[in-house]
C-alpha cells in the first residue's frame, strides 16, 4: 500500500496518460538508442514528475534509481551554507572543492590559501563529481536531473557548457524548470526542449474516474467537480485528497468532506486570506498568511502563485480583478528585491504582504 499519486504513476513512457505526444516521441528517441539532453518546462501543476518517472523507467527499467542522480537546485541555494556544510549529501563537496583549489594553487605555484568554499563552488564540485561517475550495469549512461534549474547561477551554467561536453557519453542531463528563458543560450542549444502544459480538465477527470473505479471509491459527478474547483484543477492535489479521504475510511466521498479537509490542510488559507482582505478583515487575513509562512514554511513564490490562481477564480468584477493582479505584480517585484537568505526573507517579507493585503481592503 502506498500513496495513490505514487501507485498511479506511469511505469514507462508507453503508459503515460498525460502528455502522450511528448511521451511517444521520447520513446522513439530512446529505442533508437539515444536520449538527448533535455529541458523540461512546465508549472508545478503540469505533473512533470510523472513524465520524468516514465523516462527513467523506460531507459533503465524497474531499478532505475541506481542510474539516476537528482537534486533540487532551489532547495540547495535557499539553504544556509552552514547547514549545507553538515548536510549528509553535500558535505563532502565542500571539502573536495577546497582540496581541488589547493591542488591547483600548488600546481601553478600560487601563493594563496584556499579559504572557505562557497555554496556555489561546492555545487560546481557536486556537478563535476556526479558527471564523472560511471553508469552501473549494462547501461551506457546515467541520468542527472536538476530540479528547479532556474536557480542555477550564471557562473554554474557556464561551467556546465564544458562539463556537458566532456561527459556527454556517460551522463545525460535533464533540466527541469518553469521557463527555459532562465537558462543561457548555449545550454539551451545543447538540449532538446519539451514544454509541458497543465493537463486539461477532461484528461484529469478521466484519470481520476479510472482510479476511483479501480480503488472502489464512490464519488459522484458534482463532488468531483467540487474537488477540482477546490484544487484549481491540480491533478496531484485532487488525487491526494481522494487518497486521504479514502484512508479515513470514506467509501463515498462527500462535498463536506472535501471542504473540511481543505480547511485542515490550510489549502484554503490562500483563498480565505484574499476574501477576508476584501471584506476589510485584514488582520485575520494576515494571520492566515503568517501561518503559511512561519509554520508551514511556504515560499513566497508559491504564495504569489496561489494568490494569482485564487484571484482568477474569484467571482468579482473584472476591474477589481485587474487591480488585484496589478498590485500582486508589485508585491512580486518587491519580494524579488529581498535578500536570498531564507531567514532574511522571512524577516523582511512580512510587511510586504501586510501592505498588499491592506491595499486591497475596502476604503
Amino acid at each position, binding site marked *: *500500500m*502506498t*500513496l495513490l*499519486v*505514487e501507485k498511479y504513476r506511469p511505469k514507462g513512457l508507453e503508459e503515460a496518460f498525460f502528455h502522450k505526444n511528448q511521451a511517444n516521441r521520447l520513446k522513439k528517441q530512446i529505442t533508437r538508442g539515444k536520449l538527448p539532453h533535455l529541458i523540461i518546462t512546465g508549472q*508545478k501543476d503540469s505533473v512533470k*514528475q510523472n513524465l*520524468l518517472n516514465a523516462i*527513467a523507467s523506460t531507459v533503465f527499467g524497474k531499478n*532505475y*534509481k541506481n542510474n539516476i542522480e537528482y537534486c*533540487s537546485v*532551489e*532547495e540547495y541555494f535557499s539553504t544556509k551554507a552552514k547547514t549545507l556544510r553538515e548536510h549528509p549529501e553535500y558535505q563532502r563537496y565542500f571539502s573536495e572543492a577546497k582540496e581541488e583549489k589547493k591542488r591547483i594553487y600548488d600546481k601553478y605555484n600560487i601563493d594563496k590559501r584556499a579559504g572557505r568554499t562557497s555554496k556555489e563552488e561546492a555545487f560546481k564540485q557536486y556537478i563535476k563529481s556526479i558527471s564523472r561517475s560511471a553508469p552501473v550495469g549494462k547501461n551506457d549512461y546515467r541520468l542527472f536531473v536538476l*530540479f*528547479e534549474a532556474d536557480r542555477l547561477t550564471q557562473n554554474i551554467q557556464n561551467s556546465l557548457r564544458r562539463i556537458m561536453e566532456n561527459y556527454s557519453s556517460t551522463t545525460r542531463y535533464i533540466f527541469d524548470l518553469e521557463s527555459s528563458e532562465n537558462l543561457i543560450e548555449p545550454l539551451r542549444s545543447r538540449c532538446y526542449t519539451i514544454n509541458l502544459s497543465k493537463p486539461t480538465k477532461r484528461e484529469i477527470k478521466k484519470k481520476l474516474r479510472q482510479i476511483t473505479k479501480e480503488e472502489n471509491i464512490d464519488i459522484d459527478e458534482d463532488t468531483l467537480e467540487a474537488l477540482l474547483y477546490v484544487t484549481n484543477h491540480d491533478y496531484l*492535489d485532487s488525487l*491526494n*485528497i481522494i487518497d*486521504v479521504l479514502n*484512508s*479515513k*475510511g470514506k467509501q463515498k466521498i462527500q462535498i463536506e468532506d472535501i471542504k473540511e479537509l481543505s480547511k*485542515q*490542510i*490550510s*489549502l484554503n488559507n490562500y483563498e480565505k486570506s484574499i476574501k477576508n482582505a476584501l471584506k*476589510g*478583515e*485584514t*488582520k485575520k487575513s494576515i494571520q492566515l498568511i*503568517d*501561518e503559511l*509562512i*512561519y*509554520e*508551514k*514554511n511556504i515560499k513566497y513564490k508559491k504564495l504569489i502563485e496561489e494568490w494569482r490562481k485564487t484571484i482568477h477564480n474569484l467571482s468579482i468584477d473584472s476591474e477589481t480583478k485587474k487591480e488585484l493582479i496589478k498590485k500582486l505584480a508589485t508585491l512580486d517585484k*518587491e519580494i524579488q*528585491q*529581498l*535578500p536570498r*537568505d531564507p*531567514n*532574511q526573507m*522571512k*524577516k*523582511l*517579507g*512580512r*510587511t*510586504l504582504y*501586510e*501592505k498588499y*493585503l*491592506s*491595499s486591497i*481592503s*475596502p*476604503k
Partner: protein
Amino acid sequence: MEKSIITMNKEEWTEKYRPTKLKDVVGNKKAKKQLKKWGDQWEEGEPNNKVLRLVGPPGVGKTTSAYALAKQKNWQVMEMNASDKRTSFIVKKLAGGAAQTGTLSDGAQGMRLVIIDEADNLHGRSDRGGKAAITKVLKQTNQPMILIANDEYDMSRGMRSNSKKIEFKNPNQPEVVRALQKIAKKEGIKAYKNALREIARNASGDVRGAINDLQTIVIQLQVLGKEKLRKKDVTNLGRRDRKHNIWKMLNHVFRKNDFNSLKEVKRELDPDITPDELLHWIDDNIPKRYNGNDLFGPMKHLAKASIYLARVSTSGNYSFWSYASQQMTFGVMVDKPKKSPPQYNGPKMFGRLSKASSNQQKQNRITRKIADTYFYSETDAKEQIPYLSQILENNQQKAVELARTLRLDEDEIEYLGGDQEIYQKLQKTNEEHQEKQENNQISLGDFG
C-alpha cells in the same frame, strides 16, 4: 487533529495568566485597598465618588484590577474605549436620557461597571460635544464607573474633576519576581530565581513587559532543547530605559502628530536600536483598532523600510539605514489613519522565526526522504507533507506501511501527527521480517 504540522499558536502568557482576583495582582497595595474600599461602599448604597480614574504606566495592572474588582463584586462590565467613535455616540445617548440604572445596567439585575479605557485619548480631541457628554454622564451616573489612563494630564478637565484618582505604580522587583514565579510554576518551567530577578530588574516594574520577556526567552530555550532557565540565558534583553524609549517612540508614532518631539525621541533611541529591530517593534505594535484599509498608510511605509533594509543586506551599504528608519517613524506617523494607542508587546518576529526554523528542520528531513523514495524534487515532495500527515493521523495500517517505505523515524512519525503505536507496530513487523529471513536461512542451511 490540530496538533500535526501546525504547532498551535502559543497563547500569550500575559492573557493566559491575567489575574482574576485582586489579591493576585502584585504590588500596588495602596491602590488595591482603595479600589476594594470603593467596591465595598457600593454595597452600602451610593458612595460619594461614583467615578474613579486609575492612572499609571503601562503594564502594571490597571485594566486587570478593574476587571478583578468587578468579578469579585459580581458586577457586569461594559467596556468602552475612549478613542472609539462609537463610545462618544453611546455616551451622548446616555447623557441625553438618564445615565441611570435603566440604560447603563441594561435592565439587568445587579450593578454594572462601566470602564472607559484609554481615557486620555478621547476620540477626536476637538469633539467638544463628546467631551461635554462624558462629563455630564460622569456627573449623573448612579452606577460605578472607572476611567483608565496612562497620563492623566491628557484627560479632559471634566473627567479629572469628576473622578477620584487612584494611582498605580510600578511594582518593585521582588513583586515582579513573584508574578513571574507563579507563571513559571504553572507552565512547568524550571527557572532559577536569579534568572527571574534579572528579567524583573530589566523590566523595571513593567509586569507585562517582564512576562513577555519571560515567554520569549523560554521559547528560545525550548527551541535549543534546554530545560532550565538560568541567569546567563537572560541576555539580549533590551535595557529598560531603551524599552521605555521604544514605547515613547511608539506613542509618538501612533498617538501624536508632533514632528519635532518625535525627532527628539528618535535621537535618544537611535544609538540603542538597529532599524532592523525597530521595524518589528513597530510592525507588531500597530494599534489594535486599525484594520482593513486603515492599515495601508502605515504598511506602505513599513514595506518601503523593509526594501531599504533589504538593500543594506544585499549591498552592504549602511546609508540606507537612515532612509529605512525615517520611513518607519515619520512616514508611519504622517500616514496613520487616526491617532490611537499602540499595543505594548515585544516584537514577535523572533518567536515566529524560531518556530519556522524548528519546523523547517523536521520538514526538511521528511522532505528529503519523500524526494529520495519517490524521485520527486524536494519542492514537490514538500507539497506531499500535509496529505501524508492526514493519512498518518487517520489510518494506522496505511501509516505503518508508509512509515516503512519512507524509513521514517519516531520523531518524524510524531511530527506528522502519527501516534506511538505506529512506531511500535513498525518495529514489530521489522523484527518479524528479520526473523523470517533468519528462519529461511536456517532451513536453507538444513537442506543445503
